């Protein structure tokens, strides 16, 4: 059984799989999340059972880990290979019943592609959830299915261009259908599925989900000419119009093991997944910020940003994951800042401040240019300073005094001539499309960061 864990409590699933009912179950557990407590819990669980544990700790994509799990399972010579989501659990006897069904169908239809289960949809009736199937039994598709050798032989592996999740199973079913590989299902209601729980309960994942899903959808339409269809035996037909991927007869449905990393080559593969193995989508400023924060600011305790917006949500999600103690977000637009903040969870570490240096602000104090100088008033030093608002050069100059000795400045939208002087003030660490990552350079700044008293 191949299971990918991100943030869900793993116990309900593992508890629902009895180890003594005539089946020897070997688990292939992949950890994509970064939660320390979950990692510890999984280590404890996996060490007590027959399991191969892959604690990657990055959101490398469901298709990638499924492919790896399938390969490992087939190499191990298991009788059946099941892909099971971490947000389901089996009813009592449900797992054995499904395993028996898969084994009997394997004998009956040896060339089968997949065998899917049916289950009760729970969780929420929202779009990120079960939708109209909420509280109804429904075909589970890739959420709980056995993959047969027939599928691997005829169409190969999952398309890793779908990242980080969703659409990879629909693509697989469509390819099976085009190749006339049998797809089977067990119509008994054997499990409950809290669909999309991972995205729904993780603020940062939820925030990034819309764009990631849109890119997947865009790729699916490019590949098949229409939106996904095959929604199970009772689902409506799909809108796919191509019988070959990308409507190119020279491209087949087969993705062999040797081609899983780049199944269709530079002509058709997505170009925004260069950093997908590290859990980041390309051509997206919020994802880029997240990537840079993860890369340079792991363990940051205090974060500051001038200029609120999409960055604020990313920084808040990052700070929450890191267990940071302070995120101070300053903006000069009261209504805008309020709108941004209202969309965020009530993180105890989050501080929002509307400060307009030119007019009376909600924080107005005796300071002259409060927007820039306010952080200095607090006598606090920061590990990360993101400059994306007004008065950027002034903010950058002050940021040198606000930074911890090993702190970073991320300067957004830096490709302008007037910001070239920044390189004289800081030591450049990295240039990305959207951000300039810099550290204080005592030689350039003329003082030691973190050593001088704040103004």
């Amino acid at each position: 059984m191949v299971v990918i864990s991100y943030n869900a409590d793993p116990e309900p699933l593992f508890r629902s799989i009895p180890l003594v009912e005539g089946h020897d179950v070997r688990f292939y557990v992949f950890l994509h999340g970064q939660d320390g407590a979950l990692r510890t819990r999984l280590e404890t669980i996996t060490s007590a059972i027959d399991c191969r544990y892959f604690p990657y700790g990055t959101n490398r994509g469901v298709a990638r880990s499924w492919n790896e799990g399938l390969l490992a399972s087939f190499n191990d010579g298991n009788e059946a290979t099941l892909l099971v989501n971490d947000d389901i659990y089996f009813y009592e006897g449900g797992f054995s019943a499904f395993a028996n069904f898969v084994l009997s169908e394997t004998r009956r239809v040896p060339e089968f592609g997949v065998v899917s289960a049916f289950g009760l949809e729970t969780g929420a009736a929202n779009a990120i959830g079960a939708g109209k199937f909420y509280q109804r039994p429904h075909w589970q598709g890739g959420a709980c299915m056995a993959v047969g050798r027939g599928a691997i032989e005829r169409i190969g592996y999952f398309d890793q261009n779908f990242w980080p999740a969703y659409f990879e199973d629909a693509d697989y079913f469509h390819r099976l259908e085009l190749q006339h590989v049998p797809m089977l299902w067990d119509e008994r209601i054997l499990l409950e599925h809290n669909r999309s729980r991972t995205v729904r309960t993780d603020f940062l994942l939820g925030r990034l989900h819309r764009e990631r899903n849109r890119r997947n959808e865009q790729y699916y339409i490019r590949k098949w000419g229409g939106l996904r269809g095959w929604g199970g035996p009772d689902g409506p037909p799909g809108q796919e119009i191509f019988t070959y991927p990308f409507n190119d007869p020279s491209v087949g449905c087969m993705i062999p093991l040797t081609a899983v990393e780049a199944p269709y080559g530079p002509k058709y593969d997505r170009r925004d997944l260069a950093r997908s193995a590290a859990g980041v989508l390309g051509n997206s400023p919020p994802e880029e910020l997240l990537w840079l924060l993860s890369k340079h600011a792991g363990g940051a305790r205090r974060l500051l940003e001038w200029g609120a917006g999409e960055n604020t949500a990313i920084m808040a999600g990052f700070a929450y994951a890191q267990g940071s103690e302070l995120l101070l977000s300053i903006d000069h637009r009261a209504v805008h800042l309020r709108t941004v903040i209202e969309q965020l969870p009530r993180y105890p570490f989050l501080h929002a401040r509307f400060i307009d240096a030119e007019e009376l602000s909600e924080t107005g104090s005796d300071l002259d240019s409060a927007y820039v100088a306010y952080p200095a008033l607090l006598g606090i030093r920061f590990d990360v300073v993101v400059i994306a608002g007004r008065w950027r050069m002034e903010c950058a100059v002050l940021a040198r005094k606000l930074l911890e000795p090993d702190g970073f400045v991320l300067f957004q939208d830096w490709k302008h001539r007037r910001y070239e002087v920044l390189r004289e003030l800081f030591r450049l660490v990295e240039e990305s499309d959207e951000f300039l990552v810099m550290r204080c350079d005592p030689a350039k700044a003329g003082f030691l960061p973190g050593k001088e008293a704040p103004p």
Partner: protein
Amino acid sequence: MRKVLHRLQRLLASGAMLEAGKRAKAERNVALAERDRAVEERDKARAAAEAMRAERDASLEERDKARAAAEAMRAERDASLEERDLAVRERDHALRQIAMPHPKMTDEAAAARVRVRVLQAASGSRNLIVPVQGAIANREIEITRPFFEAYCRHTGVGLEIIDVPEAITPVSAMASLRPIVESCERFAIMQPYMIIRDGCPDLFAVVTEDKLGAIIEGRWTDRRQRCLELSGLCGFSTPLPMENYLNSDLLVMSRRHLSLLDTLERGHVSSYGLDLQDALNALLYHSDICVYSLPRDFNWIPYAPEEFDWRWAWIFNMSSSWRSPPTQAFAWRPKPDGSDAYLRARLQAQHCRLPSLIEITEQLRGNNVRFVNAAEMSYEGLSARVHLTSDEAAVMWCGAAAPEGPAIFGPYLDLPAGRWSVSLLGPDGVTAADPRIVVDVVHDSGRNTVRPRGPIGPGATIEIVLDRDATNAEVRMYPGDRAYAVGCIRLNACSESHAPEQASSGPRPRTAAAAV
């Protein structure tokens, strides 16, 4: 001939007579015409006189009317002046009543005492002083104290919670702190209903020693009227500018400012009894103490419901703000004579502040909760209403009655989808209410029932599942065979988990997780 002559003479004579007659007739006609003209003129003159008389009468009438109106206005004005004088007399009387003699600090009963010295600052250094006076403050300090302690530990400041006798006025209470703070180099005085967030900067580093730190309230809310009134009460020739009016809930001071407390102690601010904030503002107006205007986030008072968000502040001050606009204006408290009768009292924000403070502290600990106070609920008739307990806490009260429709309902919240626990709590916001209270939970004007009507059960907590975002969610309480009171309702968003229920009996199968 003679005859002829005679006839001629007669003819001549008659001709003359005729001529004379004609002349006389013409003259008479002229005279008549003149008379007619004269009569006509007389009539005209008479008519004109008549018109003038009528006009005069009309103007006289108008004048009389105007006089009557003026009289009425004068009477009205006199009445209102009389009323105002009466009101002023009453107010002055009340103020004099409030302005009780200032206690001497040697008077044991009136002196403030240190209740708890939580953290001991080094001698001659910096202390945070929290005066606690009255039942409401006593309840609130239990909620906010951990945050004061955390702040003081973080900044190395001493913390002293001071018991202030309930009988003395707030001005005297502040003055009574004088012996306690005189040994401090620096001290800050904060009210027990303020919450300091984790990581709040050191107030003594923000405010320099020579200045008195406070937020200028007049910058954020209209204090013009109050400044005018205060200036009148203090006899200022130039009114106190609104831009100078500070809030007294947080004062960062130093030894240099002890004179301020001395003056308060002597009570020489005004011949009228002023409240603490007014008294301080009046004193500072004519003193040479320099005030440092703290940023608003160091004393964030939510002046509007949308400002009820602690994320805007280092120090959140509930002050006399409502959590949300109250549905009730009055509350009922038992008569002090011990009878079953109740007295009506105006419901104040302070009566409902405790649940909001608990809500904030819970949220600051990372819990997604919403506390609903008595003023946010709606009540059916007189069978249910807001009561005030003996220690001034507002509760939802429902008398014994036949269980027909809901007696208490509301607060019409929008709740996100997910699992929620709903708890009915006592006035302290902690203990569970009567488990026999019959409740249901609905949303969208009662069209969707989330939890059917029934006793809330042990722990006075029920769990509900919202499959989609719900609008206008209501908790409805029904009357029963005995009266009951609920202090507040706690709505707690549970983290999503779909753990299967444990088997009720029999051995559980060995599972992967159980093997751990």
